[in-house]
């Protein structure tokens, strides 16, 4: 085990694996920054290049690329409120708010460093995967998955930003939107209005890009200033401050990493869920919820860590059972076959050095990218100073290229426009957008697992120990929130003269 641990490290750093990893990093960097071109699509396009590589080189190349897209995906989220990947969407809320306050550097620094910590955390959990995580993975069934989505939905309360009614309406609308497409067990179409485009449901990226990106552009055009309200963007120490925040709020970073890893382990939860779960948890656990959405650094750190930690988690079912934990892992599974490897128990015994080389790739790739990014971050942060007349066409181009590259479909542009209008109205009338997205990303898992739980276990699924445990967690979270609110208002009253 110790041998494999170090041998994996040496193999990643030896030639040509290291060279392939650097190429992978460069590709991943570009893909992450450009919205729309997702990591799974890029992985699939890169598969033909690995035919002649050794397993260590191939995974250095592919995993290096994958892990970097998650890290750099946050950059456009923060600067322009356009998520580069569905997994970076939650960073928009507070990250972009920070950028508007002139603290883009700080937000970027925090996002990158929390990503690094999350990636390392996720990668090292593979070390304990054999004794702890694999049994955990097999002990959770559909009823537990369902309860986890309920836990996620309970964050709607925290994310409503003042008006619970508005939050619940938006969460419900999100669940309804997720129902558009194909019924998962009868394969019949619903809410598709005879449009083939809607058969596979609404695509997430065009929807999120429209919902968050367009209103920001409109606001920018109305204000006529640059993104950052202040002229001095290097205020508060900029990037270095964000790096320090990662460790100052180490509990947030760690919590995000843990949430990301657990969500990653569960196959079918999907990459777009982890960051929202982490964000929701942060808001719910926070004493002062009103800071969120206006530029709370914890709102960047939690999801930043979670979206990188989930890759380490998602590798576990992929390696141990041959069952991909996420979309990109499904394509990585194809890479295994090309390389003549069969995922399964062998990966944790005979091929342990390859498994460890994957872990090291994730760690080393993130260290390199964060180091390189630190150099360019200061200049990137200056983009928030460019005046609106120049930056708006550029942002609009990013938005529309981003939404169309996912499927090359005209419908995606319409979705962006439609949800852009919806987003503007919501921003204007102060309706929260986070619950809507939460409903959309959780809806499909919510529905499927509820159906399976009931059909499989009848009413007995309610008394499974895991279900009761998660239920208590949910109740505890809600109760904690109520008590705290009472306490705070009590403090306010007693302060009154």
């Amino acid at each position: 085990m110790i041998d494999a641990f170090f041998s994996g490290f040496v193999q990643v750093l030896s030639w040509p694996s290291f060279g392939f990893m650097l190429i992978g990093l460069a590709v991943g960097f570009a893909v992450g920054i450009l919205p729309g071109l997702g990591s799974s699509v890029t992985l699939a396009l890169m598969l033909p290049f690995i035919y002649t590589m050794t397993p260590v080189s191939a995974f250095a190349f592919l995993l290096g690329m994958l892990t970097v897209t998650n890290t750099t995906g946050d950059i456009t989220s923060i600067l322009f409120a356009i998520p580069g990947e569905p997994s970076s969407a939650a960073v928009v809320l507070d990250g972009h708010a920070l950028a508007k306050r002139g603290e883009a550097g700080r937000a970027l620094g925090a996002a990158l460093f929390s990503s690094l910590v999350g990636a390392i955390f996720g990668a090292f959990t593979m070390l304990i995967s054999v004794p702890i995580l694999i049994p955990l993975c097999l002990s959770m069934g559909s009823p537990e998955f369902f309860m986890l989505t309920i836990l996620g939905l309970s964050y709607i309360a925290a994310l409503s930003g003042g008006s619970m009614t508005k939050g619940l309406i938006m969460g419900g609308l999100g669940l309804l939107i997720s129902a558009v497409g194909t019924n998962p067990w009868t394969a019949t179409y619903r809410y598709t209005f005879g449009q083939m485009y809607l058969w596979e449901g609404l695509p997430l990226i065009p929807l999120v890009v429209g919902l968050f990106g367009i209103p920001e552009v409109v606001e920018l055009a109305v204000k006529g200033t640059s993104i950052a309200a202040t002229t001095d963007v290097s205020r508060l120490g900029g990037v270095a401050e964000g790096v320090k925040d990662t460790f100052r709020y180490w509990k947030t970073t760690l919590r995000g990493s843990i949430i990301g890893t657990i969500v990653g382990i569960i196959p079918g939860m999907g990459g777009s869920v982890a960051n929202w779960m982490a964000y929701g948890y942060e808001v719910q656990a926070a004493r002062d919820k009103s800071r969120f959405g206006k530029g709370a650094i914890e709102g960047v750190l939690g999801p930043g860590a979670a979206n990188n930690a989930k890759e380490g988690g998602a590798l576990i079912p992929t390696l141990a059972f041959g069952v991909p934990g996420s979309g990109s892992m499904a394509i990585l599974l194809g890479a295994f076959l090309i390389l003549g490897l069969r995922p399964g128990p062998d990966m944790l015994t005979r091929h342990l050095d390859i498994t460890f080389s994957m872990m090291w790739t994730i760690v080393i790739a993130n260290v390199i990218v964060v180091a390189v990014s630190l150099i360019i971050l200061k200049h990137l942060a200056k983009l928030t100073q460019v005046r609106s007349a120049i930056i708006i066409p550029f942002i609009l181009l990013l938005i529309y290229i981003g939404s169309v590259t996912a499927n090359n479909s005209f419908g995606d542009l319409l979705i962006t426009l439609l949800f852009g209008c919806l987003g503007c109205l919501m921003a204007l009338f102060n309706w929260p957008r986070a619950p809507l997205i939460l409903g959309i990303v959780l809806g499909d898992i919510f529905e499927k697992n509820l159906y399976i739980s009931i059909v499989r276990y009848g009413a007995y699924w309610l008394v499974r120990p895991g279900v009761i445990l998660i239920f208590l967690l949910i109740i505890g979270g809600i109760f904690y929130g109520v008590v705290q609110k009472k306490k705070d208002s009590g403090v306010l009253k007693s302060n009154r003269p």
Partner: protein
Amino acid sequence: MKKLVLAIILCSALTVFTIISGVEDGLKPFRLVTPTFAATAAPKVKPFYEGKIITFIAATGPGGGTDTFSRLLARFLPRHIPGKPKIIVQNMPGGGTLVGTNYVYLKAKRDGLSILTASGSTTVPAQQLGREGVLYDMTRMPVLMGTTTGTFCFVSSETGIRQPKDIMSPKVEIIRGGESRGSGTSFDADIPMQEIFKVKQYRAIYGYGSMGPARLAFMRGETNMHSDNVLSYQEPVIQQMIKEGRAIVVFQSGMMGPRGELLRHPTIPDVPTVAELYQQINGTSPSGIAWEVYRNLISSRSFGKIMAFPPETPPQRVQELEQALRDLVKDPEWAAESARITGEALVPPLAIIGEPVRQQIKDYLATSPEITRWLDNWVKGK
């Protein structure tokens, strides 16, 4: 001075133009000077595909079976086509496989440069059942090749089943997890269990989305029967369960032989087909409408993955490509690489080229309306 600059610019522009327009075209003037040279060279007709690009329109997204199949072909097929064209793969996902298939059928140019790659066991039954959105007629498309797929089923030892014929009397109810009613595995596992063997203690739960989550559900005991692609049979995870006696393989879908008989899939030669197991349990061959439907469905597995031209493509292009495919399957490197990447060598009898596969598709679609109606009702749960 100005004239000199102008002249230099003109000269360089001409040079650039010559380079851009291609070395061959640039040399044309010189050929006029030496006509004897050109005349002595063997008179050769330039192959149609020389310098051209063929586009494979894969009707699914990147990753997954059809995409892998397309990219594998794109790598190996060009060297067997006269003129050695390049092949690129363009993904056109949506509507199951209907968006890509409809596009190639209706809109793609009929010049021999557009080829559909899709899951034939999805597109053809969709046409048979008259699913919403089907705008194509597969019998009008020159299908160039089809490759065979198949599935196998195993049960958990907790059901008390020790050998395949025990499925009739399990100790506990058999529960299978699957994608949806109407998916490939639902045909291969649920129709035999419910309608052919008529196992009373059997239930299928749908909604698992794909094979992976359904397999995990089996591993954690949420379900106790699982149906998977034959290619998964060799996976260590499954082999280990079989070796330890936790999983008992009960039957396979099999594949259609040249005379319409049900054969065992060459990847899993030890597992009985549904017909063999029925014979073992009941002492007679299976018959009846459910069996006819099932047999018809298995015949669609001979075109699990297909490549097809749009209708009205010149017959000469069809012949050239079919010949290229025949040469391809003789290529030992293709056999080795396709076995390494997809799990089994895509050569005959698993790969069927040209007229035979078109005939199989026609036969499948020419089935009696009674069978279609039965299947349609079964999918709708009536």
